[in-house]
C-alpha cells in the first residue's frame, strides 16, 4: 500500500513549503535552513495539539522513515525540544523528504482534510493554500 508521504501531491506540497520558507530566509541570518523553518512552524500547532513530547515523537518517526528514502539524512537528529540538528548545506536539499513524511504521518492519523486545514492555518500566506483545502473538500 502506498504511504501518504509517497503520494506525488504530498511530496509536491512538502517541496512548496520548503521553497516558500527558503524564499523568506534572509541570507544575512547565516545557517538557517528552510526545512528547519518548516519544522519549527509546525512545532507550534502540533505541540499544542499533541504536546511537545508528542511532536518530538512524530518528527522522530518521520525522520526515521525519511532516512530510509534518503540515507544522506543519516546525520540528522531530533533534539528533545523538537528542533533538528545535524543539518548541512549538502543534505538540506533532501529536506522535502522529511517534510513529506511528517505530512504523511499527519494524513495517516487525522486524514487529508484536517491536515490541510492545519497547514493552511500555519501558512496563511502560502499561495493557493486556501484553494488547496477547498479542492480537497470538494473531492
Amino acid at each position, binding site marked *: 500500500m502506498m504511504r501518504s508521504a509517497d503520494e506525488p501531491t504530498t511530496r509536491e506540497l512538502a517541496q512548496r513549503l520548503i521553497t516558500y520558507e527558503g524564499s523568506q530566509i534572509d541570507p544575512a541570518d547565516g545557517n538557517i535552513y528552510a526545512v528547519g523553518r518548516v519544522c519549527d512552524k509546525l512545532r507550534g*500547532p502540533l*505541540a*499544542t*495539539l*499533541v*504536546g*511537545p*513530547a*508528542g511532536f518530538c515523537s*512524530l518528527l522522530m518517526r518521520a525522520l526515521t522513515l525519511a532516512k530510509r528514502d534518503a540515507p544522506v539524512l543519516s546525520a540528522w537528529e531530533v533534539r528533545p525540544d523538537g528542533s533538528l540538528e545535524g543539518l548541512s548545506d549538502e543534505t538540506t536539499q533532501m529536506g522535502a523528504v522529511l517534510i513529506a513524511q511528517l505530512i504523511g504521518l*499527519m494524513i495517516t*492519523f*487525522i*486524514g487529508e*482534510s*484536517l491536515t490541510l*486545514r*492545519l497547514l493552511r*492555518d500555519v501558512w496563511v500566506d502560502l499561495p493557493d493554500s486556501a484553494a488547496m483545502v477547498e479542492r480537497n*473538500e470538494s473531492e
Partner: protein
Amino acid sequence: MKEQNKVKINQLPTGVPGLDEILGGGLPEFSFNIIAGAPGCGKTTLAHQFIFANATVERPALYFTVMGEPALKMLRYQQQFTFFDAAKLNSAVRFINLSQDLIERGLQGVLEEIAKQVEAANPSIVVVDSFRTVLRSEMHEGKEMVVQTFVQQLALLLTSWEATTFLIGEYSETEVRENPVFTVADGLFWLFQQVDRNSVVRKMQIMKLRGQASVPGLHTFRITEDGLQAFSRTLGLVGQRKTFNRVKYLSMGIPALDEMMGGGVPEGDSLLIAGSSGTGKSLMATQFLAAGIRAGEPGIAAVFEERPNEYTARASEFGLDLQTPLANGTLEVIYLRPLDLSVDEMMQEILDAVKRTGAKRLVIDSLAGFEMALAPSFRADFRESLYRMIFALTAVGITILSTLEMPETFTELSFSSYSISFLTDDIIRMRYVEIDGQLRQILMVVKMRRGVHSRDIRQYEITADGIIIGERLKSFVDLVTGIPKPRSGVLRFDE
C-alpha cells in the same frame, strides 16, 4: 424569590438528541460539569457533540487533553462522526495538550496554562479530558488540600470567565463521596455500559444538576455514526394527549370485520390481534395498513421478523400494493436491528416516523418479535415498557394494531400470554377449530372499549384476496375451546 427577581439561567443545547429533554431543557450556561464513566462508554463523544453544537469562532471551545487519549487519535476517531465539523477545528474548536505542563509543573502548571489559554481565547466552553488524570497526579496522602484548592480555583476561574465546563474522568461510583470535584460540580453526568448475557446496554444518569429539574433515573442511549442519542425514560409520558371530538372509525380493510367491530377501529385506539401461528394475524395487519393508504392515511409498519422488501413482497401476494406507498413516503416499514434494542429506541424511531410521514396507523408485527429484539435486560420489564409505549403513541393520536402469537390450546381461550389485554382498547381473537375432520379458522371480536360490537364467532378463510369472513357458525357449540360439538343434542340455556 419573586419570579421577576430571579436570575435567568440560559440553557445550551447539548447537541445530543433526547438529552435536552432529560436535562429539563438544556445544559445550564456557565455550569461546571463532570462526565464520568468507565472507558468506552461515550464520555469524549458526548463532550465533542456539545462543543461542536455550541462553539463559535468568537466564543470558541477549548478542549484540553491531559495524558489520556492523544489528541491525534481522538481527532482520527471523532471525525468519523457526522457531527464533527472539520471547518471548526483550530478556530471554533481548539485542542490543547497539557501533558507537559502537568509533568513539569504539576497542578499549578496546569492551572496557569488553562488560565493563560482561557484569557487569550475567551472560550464559551472548556473541556478537560481526562480530569481524573490531572487530579490523580496529586492524589496521595497529605495532598488533599492541594487538590481541593486546585478544583476550587479552576471552578472559580472558568465560571468567572463565563465558560461552561466539562471535566471528563474515568471515575468509579465509590469516589463520589470522597473526591472534592463532585462537591464543586454543578452537573454530574454518569455514563454506564451494562453487559447482560451477550448484549450491551448503554445508560446514563444525571446524578446532579443544579438550577433546574432533570428527569431522574437511568436513561438508555445509543452511539451511532451520528454520535450519542439519548432516550428519556419518561419519553411520551409527558405532554398533552391528542383528543378527538367525535369517534372516527378506521376501516380494517375487511368489510365484514368492520361490521363486527361496530364500524371499524376507533381512531386513536390500540387494537390487539391475538392468534396462533398461521391464523392470518399479519395479513389482517397488512390489510389494515393498506386500507389506510387507500383512505389517504399514511402508515407505519414496525416489523421484526422480515425486512421491508420482504414485507411488501408478501403483501403483494395478496394483491396489496405497499411498494408504491413505501416509495412515495406514505408508508414506512421500520426494521430495527434485533437483539439489543431498547423500548425507548423503538418508541423514538416510531415517533420520528410519525412526524416524518404524518402517519395515522401503526402496525407492530409482532409483540413476540419485538420482545425478542430487545436486550435481555429490557425483556424483564416488557409489560411496563409496552404500557409506556402504547400510552405514548396513542397520545399522539395514532391508531395501533399489534399482533400477538398465542399458544393454541384446545381446552381454553386465553386472550394474551403477556397479560397485556388491559393495555389494549380492542381485542380480536383468531384461532383454529376442528370441524368435520378439518382444521378451520374462526375469529371473534372480544373487546371494543368504546363501543358495541358483534358477539358472533365467525369462520374465515385466507384467500389470494386476503381474509374473507364467512357466516356465524350456528351449528356448533364450544367453538372457543377449539373442539366444538354439533349443536344438535346439546341443550343450551337459551333454548
